[in-house]
């Protein structure tokens, strides 16, 4: 029996102890009419060897891609040590550290993580993770509504330069509570929120969300935006890419006073692309708001002998204590991904992370140049970008996608569903994992494709088709 250790004799002796005749007798409190006829669609059990063949075959179908897609999920090199340690049974198969004394490994690691994230974001405190970047933004919005006592409007200004899926998730999660997310449109030249076009008199609003870099890869005028929000008594919610923070100004230093809450997607810190998850959402804030923060928080304390130790703290915010009045319903979070991220950050260090960021930035610049050099693609926006850029193509993006993906190259992400007004564009990204040849491969294929598609349009087209 897979994973069940009982022998027939064990079962007999256990039933005798209980005083029943069969295992089935243990279910006699379940009304007979409810007892199921059994499962019908679940296939017969297989051995590990058999499922291994099945999964290898399926994984093979999707493998060996050369990936120029980003749009919220980035391919970075992950040191081998990260997951070899993260999947050690002691991290992997433990649960939430309710028994602090038997969980010092996880707890100390989380405390170290909180320190790293607080420093990276320039904030005072960090929690121990939320589900993902999108849901972290939703929680940040809810938190801002609780935290901003000066505003009563429950109005959040949400630029359209924020990842469209983040905006949707935030909307889906907060709308029940009467919170409105009001869109701010972007500048068609820069692809950013132009501070000059912000309303002089925006009325009462609770918070302004500022993405950096924004969904288009473009850098926002964070200082001006932050100051503007603060001038109107609104909080600033920063949505940032953690890798970029090794290079870019930390939200804690934005404008005169810094952002109030910072959140984002932790995936670039050691989580593989993995079809979109598991990743983790991070959140950090000013100390004054810590009691409004959702999620687990670890504190350092001492034991009976005065020895340093770590424990879950501020649990009075959480659902298992506060129930219907909790700051969030979150319980299980993304602990293992935080474990990976902490080990990742320790392995690359501050210089390494800066180099990853710089190298990704430079590779993307390089890719843009190469694509532009083909004459078949050009940058849509004129503002500086971090490691992603919106490119306008001469050929249809879906044609490009079909042709390239047939060769297992993912040329970028098509975003026309969310931004139909931008036309024939694709969001393109090259992280530090891409070599000069990779970039050239992309450019060459693009050049070739355009040639073919031109020649196929030409009158000399053969009649063979």
């Amino acid at each position, binding site marked *: 029996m897979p*994973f069940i250790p009982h022998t027939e004799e064990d079962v007999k002796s256990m039933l005798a102890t209980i005083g029943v005749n069969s295992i089935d007798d243990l279910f006699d409190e379940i009304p007979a009419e409810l007892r199921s006829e059994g499962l019908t669609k679940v296939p017969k059990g297989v051995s590990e060897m058999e499922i291994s063949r099945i999964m290898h075959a399926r994984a093979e179908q999707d493998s060996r891609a050369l990936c120029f897609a980003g749009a919220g999920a980035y391919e970075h090199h992950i040191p081998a040590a990260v997951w070899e340690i993260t999947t050690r049974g002691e991290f992997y198969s433990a649960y939430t550290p309710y028994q602090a004394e038997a969980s010092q490994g996880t707890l100390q690691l989380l405390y170290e993580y909180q320190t790293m994230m607080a420093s990276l974001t320039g904030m005072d405190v960090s929690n121990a993770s939320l589900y993902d970047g999108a849901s972290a933004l939703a929680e940040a919005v809810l938190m801002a509504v609780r935290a901003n006592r000066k505003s009563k409007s429950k109005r959040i200004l949400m630029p359209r330069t924020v990842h469209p899926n983040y905006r949707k998730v935030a909307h889906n999660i907060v709308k029940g509570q009467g919170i409105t997310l009001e869109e701010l449109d972007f500048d068609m030249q820069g692809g950013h929120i132009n501070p000059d076009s912000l309303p002089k008199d925006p009325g009462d609003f609770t918070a302004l969300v500022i993405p950096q870099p924004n969904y288009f890869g473009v850098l926002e005028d964070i200082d001006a935006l932050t100051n503007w929000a603060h001038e109107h008594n609104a909080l600033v919610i920063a949505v940032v890419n953690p890798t970029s923070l090794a290079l870019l100004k930390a939200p804690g230093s934005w404008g005169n006073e810094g952002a109030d809450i910072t959140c984002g997607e932790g995936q670039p810190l050691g989580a593989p692309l993995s079809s979109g998850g598991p990743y983790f959402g991070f959140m950090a804030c000013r100390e004054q708001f810590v009691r409004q923060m959702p999620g687990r928080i670890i504190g350092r304390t001492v034991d009976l002998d005065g020895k340093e130790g770590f424990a879950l703290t501020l649990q009075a915010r959480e659902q298992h204590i506060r129930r219907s009045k909790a700051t969030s319903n979150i319980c299980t979070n993304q602990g293992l991904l935080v474990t990976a991220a902490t080990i990742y950050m320790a392995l690359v260090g501050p210089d390494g992370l800066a180099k990853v960021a710089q190298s990704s930035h430079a590779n993307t610049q390089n890719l843009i140049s190469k694509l532009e050099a083909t004459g078949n693609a050009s940058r849509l926006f004129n503002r500086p970008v971090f490691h992603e850029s919106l490119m306008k193509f001469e050929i249809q993006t879906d044609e490009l996608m079909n042709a390239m993906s047939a060769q297992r190259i993912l040329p970028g992400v098509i975003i026309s569903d969310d931004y139909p007004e931008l036309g024939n564009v694709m969001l393109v990204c090259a992280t530090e994992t891409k070599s000069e040849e990779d970039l050239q491969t992309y450019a060459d294929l693009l050049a070739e494709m355009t040639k073919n598609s031109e020649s196929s349009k030409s009158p000399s087209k053969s009649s063979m088709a």
Partner: protein
Amino acid sequence: MLIFEQSRTGRVNTAQQPTTVDSRSNIPNEFLRTDKPLLPEVSEMQAVRHYTRLSTKNFSIDTHFYPLGSCTMKYNPRGCNTLSMLPGFLNRHPDSPANMSQGFLSCMYDLQEILKDVTGMKEVSLSPMAGAQGEFAGVAMIRAYHDAQNGGKGDPARTEILVPDAAHGTNPATATMCNFKVREIPTNKDGDVDIEALKAAVGPHTAGIMLTNPSTLGVFERKIKEIADIVHKAGGLLYYDGANLNAILGKVKPGDMGFDVIHMNLHKTFSTPHGGGGPGAGPVGVSSRLIPFLPVPMVTKVDNEYQLVTQKNIPTSIGRLSAFMGNAGVLLRAYIYARLLGKEGMHRVAEYATLNANYMMKKLEKAGFQLAFANRKATHEFIVTLKKQAKELNVSAMDFAKRLLDYGYHAPTTYFPLLVPECFLIEPTETETQDELDGFIDAMIAIQKEAETDADKVKGAPYTLPVRRLDDVKAAKELDLTWNFKKK
């Protein structure tokens, strides 16, 4: 020692950095960071040694019996991990087109089908990222359902969600997030919902009820059909908190009990690893009337091609709850586990989980421990109350819990559900041996003896762990949440 205390300025781990970094940058200075973030500057070996050693300070399923009630800490098959981490799966970008995704999508489709079968629900969406997010999806669907009534005009009177007092904290917290008022329903002395109280509570204001069955009291809610009728008749819907599905896998289907919506905790019943706190996965299943509201994305099969279903395809959906499609890697692990178990294996999960729980319950009772519901069968878990010990010996459930650690056992869930005083919610799971259960019982008996003869010993526990009992009050009062940074 913290990793930061092992750091030295200027130490770089070159093997983990791009070797040649093109320094071209078109980022103006105003955007740039000037300080160096406080990340450790350690060698690869220092990091490996530090985190390897830290790991050994944890209890875990792989090292200890971990009977944490309501959490289903059963063996996480290593094969599920290895196979879900094949490069083809790890390197797939979430925005990959269908022609680069058939392997992954086929697994997701098959998992949906398996979960439908297991729950008896009509349709399943996999995307919620934990139980609590599954609850959110479920309650949001209940709201969407009521809003769609009366030809789309809605049923705005339905502002209340009923929650039994034994419910998990996420249930009321979720109802609040969806802007419902929470009304608690009391439990009777046998652990069943108080039917009269329920009848009194329902009405046109009732949006629905959130129930766990078996309940968090470790007993099966016998009047479930009656409860379903009462709530349905009042116009409310039934939400099933599937955290305890392990107890009934293959035995009873929530769909047959009359539930309209259910979330499953794959990190419990489907044994995906708990990861020191997560990730989990909380797929939702629904009866026919809620299908239009399921969260996206889902996976469908058209002409033998697997495709994502998005809001474009289901405009009435409550929408997406994650940036992509939830905790995909967790879903893969659950799929592999389900295939390893297969049909027969699933039945056996409930059977042996129940056998183990009843065995422990009976042996503890014989040893003199007081059960919370002595005249009930245990499901996959059961409750011991240590109120006598607390009163007579001044040794609390917390003291027992800490002392158990010294005996090499993780403590059961303590002080939950809140309505049982000094409570131990004990869930052995099906993957533990009789020997291991006996060892735990012997430890309980030994601690009881200690409590009777040397209560201070128990109250001073643990003694053999990396730290002794920690000062939680100081932790909360003198907040120290980051190291040596800014303040220090």
